């Protein structure tokens, strides 16, 4: 079936459903169920992660196209089939999902109601997300893309904070409204090509005039998911109200779906429109970096400040993608990984405070470095990675995007680089308010440093932050081939002569 003799991608995608099945069949006392449910979810996600690491091991980075392809006939009369495959671009996004799911599961200590349902939703979310990254058929992709909404909606709406219903509905309506436009675009493209196989679609030319409309449709859908300014306002509410594991998955993984969509569909399938829209996307990216950073600076709550910082960093990713340079696109991809890990780390840090019964209002924290030195060190590390300090993961992506952007336009590069100053401003304010100065309240002096479970969540994240920062080549050499192919195809399709020559042959 594949090189391996077994469908590894489908296995990774659907294995969490086995966990869901086990969860559903659990019986016994409530407390026992809660405890077992946690174990089942964790074990399932770790097994899937192990499979994912095996996938990385057998993956051949020299091939630019899809590997481990799977194909099953499905609605074959309509040109639709069940196709899975992975290339250097999607490999690490799948691994990111697999890596963060166990961390999200460990971070759900605060969930005590309907525990089975919660972990089922988390595992379902893993299935849908991985399926979305691995799908190589547009309809299949769309189904997974939309299906991600359901478990996330439940996670926010059932287990969220005080304003959970408002946040969940806002999240649902924003993303669904955007996705409907994508559905229209999808139907047009399906009609045009007679197939929904992504590889076929890539080689089916689309008239430039139509491209612009399709691009706008994709922008509506992926822009909302990636929280591109000004489609981002669902995000602070959703991040703020979702329970911690939900926030981690939203910020670290789900926001990457939008950026992935741009990279997989909007740029390669609509080259003319993407090139024409690049200035618009640069403006949106720059506004995200500058304006949203200012908004972040004004926040008074730790979680919301991190949420806005996340939006600002998505701006860097968008800028990188639309430079259409090897440096910029690889930088954007790298930033996607780094952002996923760093933002997860920061949210886990907020969870540590929540678990100790503390609020997240910055004015009511302070002085924690004295009693919680390890926590302080790790929060500092994630904050530094978030501001792109060299030696941490954040730097590589940021400098590559700046380098790529400078090839296109000086001012885009300069404004992208102002993020270096602005992010330092709000992150240092956050770090100071949480860790330094004197205790604002006597209760803070009694807090204990990290426990074993928190170490288990944060140390792997910290290790990855350093690994990505010190030896990024283990990751970049995997994207190198597909990104080079993507840039080459993009440049070729913008040159009318070569395109013509291909047609006449």
């Amino acid at each position: 079936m594949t090189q391996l003799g077994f469908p590894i991608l489908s296995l990774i995608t659907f294995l969490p459903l086995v966990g869901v099945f086990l969860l559903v069949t659990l019986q016994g006392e409530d407390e026992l169920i809660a405890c077992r449910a946690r174990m089942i979810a964790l074990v399932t996600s770790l097994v899937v992660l192990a499979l994912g690491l095996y996938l990385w091991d057998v993956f051949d980075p020299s091939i630019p196209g899809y590997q481990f392809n799977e194909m099953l006939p499905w609605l074959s009369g309509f040109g639709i089939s069940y196709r899975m495959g992975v290339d250097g671009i999607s490999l690490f996004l799948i691994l990111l999902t697999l890596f963060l799911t166990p961390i999200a599961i460990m971070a759900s200590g605060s969930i005590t109601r309907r525990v089975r349902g919660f972990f089922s939703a988390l595992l379902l979310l893993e299935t849908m997300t991985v399926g979305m990254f691995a799908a190589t058929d547009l309809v299949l992709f769309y189904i997974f893309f939309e299906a991600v909404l359901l478990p996330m909606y439940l996670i926010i709406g059932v287990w969220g904070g005080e304003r959970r219903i408002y946040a969940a509905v806002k999240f649902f309506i924003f993303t669904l409204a955007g996705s409907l436009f994508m559905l229209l675009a999808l139907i047009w493209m399906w009609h045009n090509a007679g197939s929904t196989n992504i590889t076929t679609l890539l080689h089916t030319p689309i008239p430039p005039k139509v491209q612009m409309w399709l691009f706008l449709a994709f922008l509506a859908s992926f822009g909302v998911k990636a929280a591109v300014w000004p489609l981002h306002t669902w995000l602070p509410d959703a991040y703020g109200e979702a329970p911690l594991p939900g926030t981690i998955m939203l910020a670290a993984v789900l926001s990457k779906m939008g950026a992935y969509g741009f990279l997989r569909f909007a740029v390669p399938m609509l080259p003319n429109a993407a090139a024409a829209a690049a200035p618009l996307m640069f403006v949106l990216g720059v506004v995200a970096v500058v304006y949203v950073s200012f908004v972040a600076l004004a926040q008074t709550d730790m979680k919301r400040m991190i949420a806005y910082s996340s939006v600002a960093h998505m701006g860097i990713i968008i800028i990188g993608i639309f430079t259409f340079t090897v440096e910029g696109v690889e930088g954007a991809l790298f930033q996607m990984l780094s952002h996923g890990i760093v933002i997860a780390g920061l949210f886990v840090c907020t969870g540590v405070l929540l678990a100790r019964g503390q609020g997240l209002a910055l004015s009511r924290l302070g002085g924690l470095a004295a009693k919680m030195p390890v926590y302080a060190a790790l929060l500092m590390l994630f904050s530094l990675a978030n501001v792109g300090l060299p030696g941490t993961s954040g730097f590589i992506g940021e400098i590559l995007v700046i380098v790529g952007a400078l090839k296109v336009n000086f001012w885009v590069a300069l404004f992208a680089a102002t993020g270096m100053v602005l992010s330092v401003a709000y992150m240092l304010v956050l770090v100071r308010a949480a860790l330094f100065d004197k205790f604002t309240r006597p209760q803070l002096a009694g807090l204990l440093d990290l426990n074993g479970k928190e170490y288990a969540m944060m140390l792997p994240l910290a290790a990855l932050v350093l690994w990505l920062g010190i030896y990024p080549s283990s990751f970049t050499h995997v994207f190198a081939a597909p990104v080079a192919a993507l840039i080459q195809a993009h440049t070729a399709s913008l040159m009318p002569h070569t395109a013509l020559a291909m047609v006449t042959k």
Partner: protein
Amino acid sequence: MLTLIAVFAPLVGAILSGVARPFIGKSLAVGTSVLFMLVSAAAGLATLAAGLQHGISGPVRVAEWVSVGSFTAAWSLRQDMLSLAMVAMVSVVSMLIHVYSVGYMSHDKTKPRFFAYMSLFTFAMLMLVTANNLLQLFFGWEGVGLVSYLLIGYWYDKPAANAAAIKAFIVNRVGDVGFAIGIALTYYVFGTISFDKIFAAAPLHVADNYDLFGTTFPALEVIAFLLFIGAMGKSAQIFLHTWLADAMEGPTPISALIHAATMVAAGVFMIVRMSPLINQAPVAMEFITIIGATTALFAGTVGCVQNDIKRIIAYSTCSQLGYMFLAAGVGAYPVAMFHLINHAFFKALLFLAAGSVIHAMSDEQDVRLMGGIARKLPITWLMMLFGALALAGIPPFSGYYSKDAILAAAYAVHTSVGYYGWVCGVVTAGLTAFYIFRLFLLTFHGSSRAPKHVQEHVHESPLVMLAPLIVLGTGALGSGFELRKYFIGADFSSFWGQSIQVPAHSVMTSLDANPNWVTFAPLVLASCGLATALLFYVFVPALPALLSQRLGILYRFLLNKWYFDEIYDVLLVRPALRLAKFAWRFGDEQIIDGVPKGLATLTADASAQTVKLQTGSIAFYAFVMLVGLIAFLSLFLWVR
């Protein structure tokens, strides 16, 4: 191999003393840090000696780092003479300050953290000076900035220390934006960020142009400007200098190591390192000269009226860095390096001696509350005197040789910018001698103005603090005289080799060709400054107070450091915070969120209205259906 040990030993020390502290205990953690620093200093000196004897060797490649397209940078250690000289200086000064800190920080509760930070700093600084590409230089650059932030805010329960730490990081980052864009532009122009390739190709790109602000500029000029903006932030040059004086909130050994000897000199080092490229950018060089000279003068004037012993020395550092840029700007890079090394020794000495005084005075830092302690602290007194004489440029102390060489070079270029630099530099020489002897006399001489209980506790520091002072004092006495012939002597180019490229028609050969009055002017003004200090603070102590009253406006202008902080606060800081509030409360919550919220309200209202139609009366429904049917039928007939 020796370079590798010199660079990585501090990292090992930092990790061991930082991470392993709970397992090995406090004193062992501190000991580990100092031990690895001793190893590093020995290796640093050995590698310099080996380089001098057997010639330099190629770079050591440690590992791959970034490789994307042709944007490639490896972790590697460059071993040319410029790097080796800096490695030796940094590791030795850092080692001395580690030893000193064992005494100075003995009462501190979290001292392993302090030593871990200091060792980490040394590692980052060594990575900076041994970088073989722009990206690793930037790694070290930001790394030292980070540790500087951590150490300024070391006593994190002090709000002033936290504010100063954040300010230092942000102001440095403003410069770093320039640096980062400079790296990107270098890559755009040269297609590489490796030093050797850039240096080899620099002359080929002189004619390249870059469009900006609707005009065309030579690309290399733009690069040089951007890199220099980075250097201005790190080396606290005017406009980006405001963080340095506040950075004195950190422990004094840090002020000596980071904010005097090593990190702040990184900007100068970077410009010297990039000399083959800078040489091709004459306008940028003039800009560097002007900024350097202006900073020297500005900081010199401010230093004359400050009252905090550490802040006076901090402004002096700012001013001396200005001198170094002045030298670099006129193309006299070896002279800039000469002053950099001399300055590292005598300024570290001054700070450590100040630390010894502060230690003795129960943490008092105001020079107006000191005085009359010369007899109680004889060794500190002598060492501070050495440092002061070296800074003031009195022969045979080190500052005399390098400062005079800088001013000679500035005059020798015979351009209007050079003359401007020379005038600023000579005036500053007078100011320097005045403020450092003002500090010296107020601290050690006259009658004691300290409270009684402080006076009783005044004591000389322990040997562990005095020994580094004596070593540095020897340096301040001898480094100028000893290093002169290597660094800037007739044979300077064979000493530096390919590591520094002076421009064509360099001033390096004409340093001794100036008229006599030009050569002696700095020494004369320095003597005048010294004499004025004696007059003010020994012979007629009432004079300063009288002057400050008569010249009230000028005095307040200087005391408030030319009002830079106030202006930045009004122009930048407060508007930024207001903008942040506005963007959040109005932009995000009202406008951007307002549109979807408005739509939602509209939908809800419409449905509320529609609900009213559902009356439940069959007759009403039937009537509406009938009306609809008639309407559709007539429409159908009409259209047909």
